[in-house]
């Protein structure tokens, strides 16, 4: 495996070898063949997931956060591939492992749940059958009746009432919240070490979302699994995550512990997200919106990719190297040459 010599790779590698990291990603680049040539949906991403903790990947649609998770699972669409970088899972390099080996890991040791629980369940089979299949896919020796018992137990664990009866129902007989619980039950039935949750509550009502988030937290406490939570909602991040990485246009622009990033947000994009989110706890006069929109993959700006939308943009932001990561405080990295902004715009800081 070739390593891309990234300017900040060495800084993060020290972290990734420390023993409490389950999954670490370094210099990951995922590219797609398109009519407009080869484009990079993920471009030089470094993250590490601590054992038993939750890492949130935050960003808007098109920032590459879903492609990042599919790269880990090696479930990329046919025209996509991981073209550079490494994914280290418990000392095992995932990039380039044969499909058969990956199948043994996928679902068993790294599981995934998706945004839309209706389309990720097969409408033609009972939910019980689908969970049993998930169990027997990784352990052929389990008999059908044992697997069924385990399926019922799994459904009980995610808080589905009357699990003995529900196990024989079809997906369309369940509400959206119940379906997402079934998806979680199915993902967790093999006791994975890592759960990737891709916008798990976006399609749900707010009261149901609250229940699903609580469920994920209590299951994490129970099993000690690590979670990669992909979301666009800063509220969900604040509530669920220990660490967070803000992603923009295929790159991580700011990463650190949740309290560091919320207390001391440095990157103008992180600030923009905070300013754009209306608050339920106070009356805001006016939201500080980010101007413009996310650039398409085949027309990425040079230098810092956020510069066309940034209020603090200067000429240096437009040249390569402007997106170099620097460590603001321990474990808190920012890819902005203008950070902290108050020091660079002193005349406006008063």
């Amino acid at each position, binding site marked *: 495996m070739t390593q891309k010599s990234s300017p900040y790779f060495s800084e993060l590698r020290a972290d990734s070898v420390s023993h409490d990291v389950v999954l670490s990603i370094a210099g990951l680049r995922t590219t797609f063949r398109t009519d*407009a*040539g*080869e*484009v*990079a949906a993920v471009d030089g991403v470094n993250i590490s997931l601590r054992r038993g903790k939750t890492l949130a990947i935050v960003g808007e649609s098109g920032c590459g956060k879903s492609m990042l998770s599919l790269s880990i699972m090696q479930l990329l669409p046919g025209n996509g591939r991981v073209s550079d970088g490494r994914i280290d899972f418990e000392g095992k390099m995932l990039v380039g492992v044969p499909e058969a080996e990956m199948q043994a890991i996928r679902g068993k040791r790294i599981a995934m749940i998706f945004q839309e629980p209706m389309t990720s369940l097969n409408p033609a089979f009972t939910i019980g059958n689908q969970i049993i299949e998930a169990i027997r896919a990784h352990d052929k020796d389990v008999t059908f009746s044992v697997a069924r018992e385990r399926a019922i137990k799994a459904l009980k664990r995610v808080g589905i009432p009357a699990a003995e009866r529900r196990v024989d129902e079809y997906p369309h007989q369940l509400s959206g919240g119940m379906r997402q619980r079934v998806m979680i039950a199915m993902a967790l039935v093999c006791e994975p070490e890592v759960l990737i949750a891709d916008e798990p509550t976006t399609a749900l009502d707010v009261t149901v979302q609250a229940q699903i988030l609580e469920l994920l937290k209590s299951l994490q406490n129970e099993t000690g699994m690590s979670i990669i939570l992909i979301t666009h909602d800063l509220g969900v991040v604040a509530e669920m995550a220990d660490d967070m990485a803000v992603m923009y246009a295929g790159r991580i622009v700011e990463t650190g512990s949740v309290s560091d990033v919320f207390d001391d947000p440095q990157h103008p994009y992180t600030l923009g997200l905070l300013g754009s989110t209306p608050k339920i706890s106070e009356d805001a006069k006016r939201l500080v919106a980010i101007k413009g929109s996310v650039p398409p993959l*085949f027309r*990425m700006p*040079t230098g810092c990719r956020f510069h066309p939308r940034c209020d603090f943009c200067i000429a240096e932001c437009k040249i390569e190297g402007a997106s170099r990561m620097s460590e603001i405080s321990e474990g808190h990295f920012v890819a902005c040459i203008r950070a902290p902004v108050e020091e660079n715009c002193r005349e406006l800081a008063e």
Partner: protein
Amino acid sequence: MILTSKSPTVPNGVNRRRIVKKLSALLPFLALAVLLLCTAFPEFLAPKDPYAQSLIRRLKPPSFLPGGISGYILGTDQLGRDILSRIIFGARVTIITSVLAVCVAAVVGTTAGLVAGYFRGRVDSAVVRAIDVQLAFPVVLLVIAIVAVIGPSLSNLIIVMGLSAWPQFARITRGAVISVRDLEYIEAARSIGAGHMRIMFRHILRNILSSIIVYATFEMARMMLVEATLSFLGLGVQPPTPTWGGMISDGSKYLGLSWSVSFFPGLVIVLAVLLVNDLGDRLRDFMDPYLKND
């Protein structure tokens, strides 16, 4: 970005393939042009008089085969008429009848389907019943029955063929209308005060028109075959006017003596049907707004 810039050295093979691809893309249009010219000016294109008979040179093979007569490129039929000239003249009848028949079918069927799908309720049930009743009848049988009663003339033939095909148009239109009528942009049109006619014709029809047109081209290919069938059965355009179906019918009696009399009109029908289907596909791509302006 590095990714967007194309490498300057393109292998020769790729270039050649591109040229071949471009040429083959032009081919159907060339064929269409020939077909339309035949329809419009058969007099100038046909090498011989399609009606000139000669018993001496009857049932000759094509000129490039042993026994062929020079000047009669595709050979002659049972009355010694030039097959190529008759095919060229036959194009007019075949094209005009099938185009007009499809127009009749499309107008009747689309209107019925639009009204049924938009208003639903009783109008819809009535149209659906009518479609079901007519579809229960084999088309050719229906046409035979009607032509037998009102007599075989060109205009009768067109109307009968057109009416035999309206149910498919109505069904396709109705289905498309139902899938479009509840979309938000139709509700948006209602919210800005658009009336039924405006919504039906400017909003709904406009969005389903491409599928109707594409279907119409396929239907046109089928109409060519129906026309050929009817002519073959002697219910179409009457002799001596040359039609492709009629020529196959004539030649079928002499297949043991000469294969070419039926073969070439048959080949032309196959090619014309393929051509029209191909044009239908292209039309669909062309009418897709998602492929425009990019």
